[in-house]
């Protein structure tokens, strides 16, 4: 019963989706401010989601695999909610989690992109296939950087593979206060940008060249599921960064303000990067992660070995 409550209401679906919707509005509003516009109204993410869910017709492609096409958004939503629950339970000090949950979270965070790939491949649309192949290349490029960064954080946290121990290791001072922590933060921010499909790395859903790529055939309720997944990921991933490098989240007393500021800070950084950069090509993205970001993370690991 408690697990169901965790999954559906409090750190899970309802809470993470609400927070993610707010962050999505915040992201669009900051974008509007950067461009000297006024921006969407406060409830815009809710309107978008409800419109897709309730009003619009769902079209399934005639020449695709319909079952996989419709199951893939559910699978992505499940992965996003599970990772949100496993990150937020230890982060908000509700329950202790278990040893090795960082590895489980790493795999769960991969489920939404894999679900997008499945759905795109099942839709039978050539542009969706292009988007899916680009998504695969993007996953191959950023995942090595991300797992190396996780390894560096685990090393800094005293070789313990558990979010609770990582948070406890930062009670004296967050990891970002050290030189290696700053390098890791940079690398992880770019990984987030690619995981969320934001602009320098939105090659998989490039609106202007391949018309939303992986999501081109989705309409109605399945697309609402994808939008919800994106909201949840927009909250989950900054929360994960806050846990890994910024000293964790807290919901007691004054800590709640610091938690909100940490997540808003990460989201503002992502939004500003997205508004000031053009879309890169696939080979540029792969080279960026394979060469430069991996070098950055390895330098961070070496620095943390020498205690910086």
């Amino acid at each position, binding site marked *: 019963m408690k697990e169901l409550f965790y999954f559906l209401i409090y750190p899970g679906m309802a809470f993470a989706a609400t927070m993610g919707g707010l962050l999505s509005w915040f992201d669009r509003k900051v974008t509007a401010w950067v461009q000297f516009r006024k921006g*969407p*109204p406060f409830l815009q993410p809710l309107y978008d989601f409800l419109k897709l869910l309730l009003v619009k017709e769902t079209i399934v492609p005639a020449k695709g695999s319909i079952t996989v096409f419709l199951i893939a958004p559910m699978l992505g939503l499940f992965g996003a909610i599970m990772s949100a629950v496993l990150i937020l339970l230890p982060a908000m000090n509700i329950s202790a989690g278990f040893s090795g949950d960082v590895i489980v979270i790493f795999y769960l965070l991969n489920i939404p992109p894999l679900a997008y790939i499945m759905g795109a491949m099942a839709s039978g649309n050539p542009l969706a296939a292009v988007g899916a192949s680009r998504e695969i290349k993007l996953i191959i490029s950023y995942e090595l950087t991300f797992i190396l960064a996780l390894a560096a954080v685990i090393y800094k946290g005293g070789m313990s593979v558990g979010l609770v121990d990582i948070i406890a290791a930062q009670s004296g001072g967050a990891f970002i206060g050290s030189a290696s922590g700053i390098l890791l933060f940079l690398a992880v921010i770019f990984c987030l940008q690619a995981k969320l499909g934001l602009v320098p790395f939105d090659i998989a859903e490039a609106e202007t060249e391949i018309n939303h790529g992986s999501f081109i055939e989705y309409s109605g309720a399945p697309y609402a599921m994808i939008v919800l997944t994106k909201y949840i990921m927009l909250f989950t991933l900054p929360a994960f960064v806050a846990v890994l490098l910024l000293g964790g989240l807290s919901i007691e007393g004054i800590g709640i303000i610091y938690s909100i500021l940490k997540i808003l800070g990460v989201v503002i950084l992502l939004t500003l990067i997205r508004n000031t950069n053009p879309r890169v090509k696939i080979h540029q993205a792969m080279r960026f992660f394979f060469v430069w970001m991996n070098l950055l993370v390895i330098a961070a690991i070496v620095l943390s070995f020498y205690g910086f």
Partner: protein
Amino acid sequence: MGLKEHVFKKSLWLFHFAGASCNNCDIELLDCLTPRYDVERFGMKLVGTIRHADVLLVNGSINKRDKDRLLEIYHQAPKPILTVAIGACGCSGGIFAEGYTNAGPVDELIPIDAFIPGCPPKPEAIIAGIVHLVNKKKSNNIKQNDKVLSNEDQ
């Protein structure tokens, strides 16, 4: 006003279909997204695929090649879909109305919910047309349009 209609009006996503246009209407349409006019205030945004769209914006004169593509796009759209004809060519055929390649004004091919005349219409006129569109009665807004001509009809 029901919840469905309310959320639909608050989040109209636009898909832009340009026929054989001289590009003036396209430019004025893009002006609506710029900081000065900013239709994102009303929750509108331009999407790249008809499957996500709630409003089909048609401008330019529709010639015989465009007609098939317009009908295909219209049939691919998830219902309910609103349609807007923009500019003199979209509304009536404009100076191409008598031309031998012209397939007729847009409202003879698909049902149109709002006309925005002008050559080109100013962004203010386009926004006024959109406001007119969202204030229309429910019976016109959410319905299955069934009087569409198929590709073989004409």
